[in-house]
């Protein structure tokens, strides 16, 4: 018990009693009913389906990439093990880990390619890959035996053991896969995967190396499937491409996860234990493979239409809502925001030289079709300042932010941060250099808790860090300190999507601070929130600035800009119009023109038509 708690990091919950009892029953079953071969076989198939479902859930539930090619890893494992053990006369059980290795290698290679697509394209590409593997398997007869298939050696063990070795090894793989999936969910890696599912672009912006994360998830979903495939091949003793690269196997995996609850920890295993027995029932009561097709297809449609969230998710939601009802919503009201502002200990030392340019934009341009959103714009943000960036609506401010943070690439021009050219870097590399941003409309990961949101950012990338515990230890302490700092310490366990807009802005600020940023870009921090909170935000910005963080601020609330910012940069029609102390800007005739719309080249524009 202790061991499980250590591996998974979860507190002991009632669900574990049920799970351990069920496991004990599954271990005991063949010993108590040694003659019930049929049920043992059904259970073996169920374990196999569960391995597939748990694995698929890592890439499709956690990461949000729905694949219909999961059974390809089963086939690759099966063929690897079959070919190696036949050619070398080895025991397939010994070779089975190689099946996992082969599946992982294939996942690495195709992951690097297919993870560049998403949505429709990703689903299609996974179907195409599966069918491609099947065709290759059929056509490469010398290696795979083509449509004649391959026959493995029969098991050599004493007949008294029956199929026990198959039964227990598959049960073992299922348990390991499940613990592996639970462990992933608790790590920073797992938090990163959920972040990618919720908002991939934003995830990149807070320092998550999305490519490596997605490919790693793809590999994680392949390994155990490959090992299971090897054992499955031995169990069947005969494999052929149509059976091994079968899209119906993928469909039953998808079905099991959807029934159980996509993205949940226990959903896939619960789903497998529902779907496989039903599948057996259709085999028995409705003869023939055609009725199985109707069953699987109909079940898939029904689940998508009527129960897309699955059983486990629905049940957990029910209990969560009931718990919350007892506690009331008091904690979600505005008053609960703490106004204390504890001193921060977690920010990194900022580079001293206050006069140097931290960020330098030189002639940056970006066009959308015929619209020149940013037009040869140049400006600097000096170390230690709170620089304001103002301009009429549509003058290219947010596009400028997107160019700086890497959400878009400039058509031309240079962007330099801390003396390094960054316009070609990925968003996560820029985040690792110390560049953070918030959004005009907050983009928190809505399904995560507030605390998870703040833990998610990564100020650097190390492979080792993927396995770091995401829910405990120094990362959690750091996140809690930041949440307390912005006054949201009491909300750690709330779902981010339940917060008010203003509260989300505070959390998003804490999230950015987790990056230990040197420069923070704030996109309309005061937009859409109440005056008290604006005051509070202004205080936080000033305080953080005194602790060494530089800010670039886009804002329409002029009193706030004039109070906080020096210098203020004015942009209009995509390029810099003026720059200076707020008092100069306020009196600058060019700026007044731009804001009132009396463009000097628009002579036909009547004054009353303006602003």
């Amino acid at each position: 018990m202790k061991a499980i708690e250590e591996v998974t990091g979860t507190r002991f919950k009632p669900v574990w009693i049920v799970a351990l009892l069920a496991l004990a029953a599954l271990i005991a079953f063949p010993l108590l009913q040694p003659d019930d071969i049929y049920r043992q076989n059904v259970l073996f198939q169920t374990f196999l389906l569960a391995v597939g479902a748990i694995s698929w859930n890592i890439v499709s539930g956690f990461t949000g990439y729905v694949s219909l090619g999961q059974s390809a890893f089963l086939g690759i494992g099966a063929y690897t093990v079959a070919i190696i053990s036949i050619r070398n006369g080895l025991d397939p059980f010994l070779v089975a880990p190689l099946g996992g290795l082969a599946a992982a290698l294939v996942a690495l290679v195709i992951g690097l390619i297919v993870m560049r697509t998403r949505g429709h394209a990703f689903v299609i590409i996974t179907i195409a890959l599966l069918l491609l593997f099947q065709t290759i398997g059929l056509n490469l007869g010398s290696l795979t035996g083509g449509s004649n298939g391959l026959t493995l050696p029969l098991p050599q063990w004493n007949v008294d053991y029956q199929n026990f070795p198959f039964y227990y090894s598959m049960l073992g793989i299922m348990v390991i896969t499940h613990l592996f999936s639970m462990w992933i969910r608790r790590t920073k890696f797992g938090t990163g995967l959920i972040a990618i599912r919720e908002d991939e672009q934003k995830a990149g912006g807070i320092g998550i190396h999305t490519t490596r994360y997605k490919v790693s998830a793809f590999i994680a979903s392949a390994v155990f499937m490959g090992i299971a495939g090897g054992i499955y091949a031995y169990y069947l003793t005969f494999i052929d491409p149509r059976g091994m690269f079968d899209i119906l196997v993928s469909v039953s995996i998808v079905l099991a996860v959807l029934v159980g609850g996509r993205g949940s920890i226990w959903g896939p295993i619960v789903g497998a234990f529902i779907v496989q027995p039903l599948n057996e029932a259709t085999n028995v009561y409705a003869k023939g493979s055609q009725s199985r097709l109707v069953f699987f297809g109909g079940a898939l449609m029904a689940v998508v239409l009527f129960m897309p969230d699955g059983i486990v998710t629905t049940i957990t939601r029910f209990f969560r809502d009931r718990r919350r009802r007892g506690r009331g919503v008091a904690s979600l009201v505005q008053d609960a925001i703490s106004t204390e502002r504890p001193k921060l200990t977690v920010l990194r030392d900022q580079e001293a030289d206050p006069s140097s340019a931290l960020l330098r934009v030189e002639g940056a341009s970006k066009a959308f079709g015929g619209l020149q959103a940013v037009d040869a714009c140049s400006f600097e943000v000096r170390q230690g300042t709170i620089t304001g960036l103002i301009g009429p609506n549509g003058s290219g401010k947010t596009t400028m932010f997107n160019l700086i943070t890497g959400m878009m690439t400039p058509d031309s021009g240079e962007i330099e941060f801390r003396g390094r050219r960054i316009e070609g870097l990925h968003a996560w590399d820029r985040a690792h250099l110390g560049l953070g941003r918030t959004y005009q409309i907050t983009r928190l990961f809505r399904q995560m808790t507030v605390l998870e949101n703040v833990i998610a950012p990564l100020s650097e990338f190390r492979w080792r860090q993927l396995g770091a515990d995401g829910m405990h230890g120094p990362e959690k302490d750091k996140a809690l300190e930041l949440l307390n700092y912005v006054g949201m310490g009491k909300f750690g366990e709330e779902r981010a999507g339940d917060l008010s807009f203003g509260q989300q802005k505070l959390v998003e600020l804490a999230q950015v601070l987790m990056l230990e940023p040197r420069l923070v870009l704030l996109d309309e921090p005061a937009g859409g929130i109440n005056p008290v909170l604006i005051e509070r935000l202004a205080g936080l910005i000033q305080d953080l600035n005194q602790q060494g963080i530089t800010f670039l601020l886009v804002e329409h609330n002029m009193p706030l800009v004039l109070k906080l910012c020096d210098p203020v940069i004015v942009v209009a029609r995509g390029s810099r119009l003026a720059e200076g102390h707020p008092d100069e800007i306020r009196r600058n005739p060019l700026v007044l023109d731009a804001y009132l719309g009396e463009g000097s080249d628009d002579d036909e524009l009547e004054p009353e038509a303006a602003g």
Partner: protein
Amino acid sequence: MEKLIQTIILGLLIGGVYSLMASGLTLIFGVMNIINVAHGAFLVLSALVTWEIWKTTGMDPLLAGLITTPMMFVFGWVVYKLFLQRIRNSAPSMTVLLTFGLALVLEGGMGIVTRNVFRSVTPSYFSSSFHLGPFFLPKPQVYGCIAAITFMVLLYLGLTRTWTGRAIRASSQNLSSAQLIGISSTSVAALTFAVAAATTGFGGSILSVLFTFFPASHYVWISRLLGIIVLGGMGSLPGVVIGALALGIAETMTATYISLRWATVVFYVVILAVLLVRPQGILGVKLRQDVAVA
């Protein structure tokens, strides 16, 4: 050289037929951002009905297209109203799963109702050809291609010359603007789906003469059609014609010069390559959601 030209002629003829079959798929994607994975199963269903009509009455299969077209129109409308309308706001992957489920049900259903065997419709002109100098043009291919082009022209006229057609095209170009000027998105979607299904009606009748088929053939067909619309640019009607002709030629070339067994692989490779290198296809508009930020 003669062999090459002959191969290209056959490729173009078959490409013309493919373009009709794929036009519905691209139309649905353009208007409602759904990939109808059951499109291949629709085709096979219509082919099967054509076979039954031909078997029982002896009616010419291309003439039977005049029956299967309205039949599939109604079928498509019902399918949309019963299933797709309920999840039109879900994630794209969910609509793919739904239509995939539908394809499986159709495959199984066809297998149960008719015996699960290979079929093909063999009218009198089945194995005869027109001769043009040293080249031959198989009559079924020629008739099928002409019928497909006629149907495509009618479809094009319908989309450009009628109010309904313009509503469909407007919705495919900018759904929210179309809604703003008073186009009801649900009825346009249902209509589009029905029209797209109607193309599989005629397409399936042509299929029944040109190919042998059985219920599970729909996997091959959906792969072909996806390859075509991915290459041409998803949602683009002119793109479909380009993609269909290009892949028709590529397929016959592979079959002639390499091996028939590898001919279908062409489509999988094209899908993979295009989605990776130029996800918007030849004529498609770049969809930001289909490309990960990597």
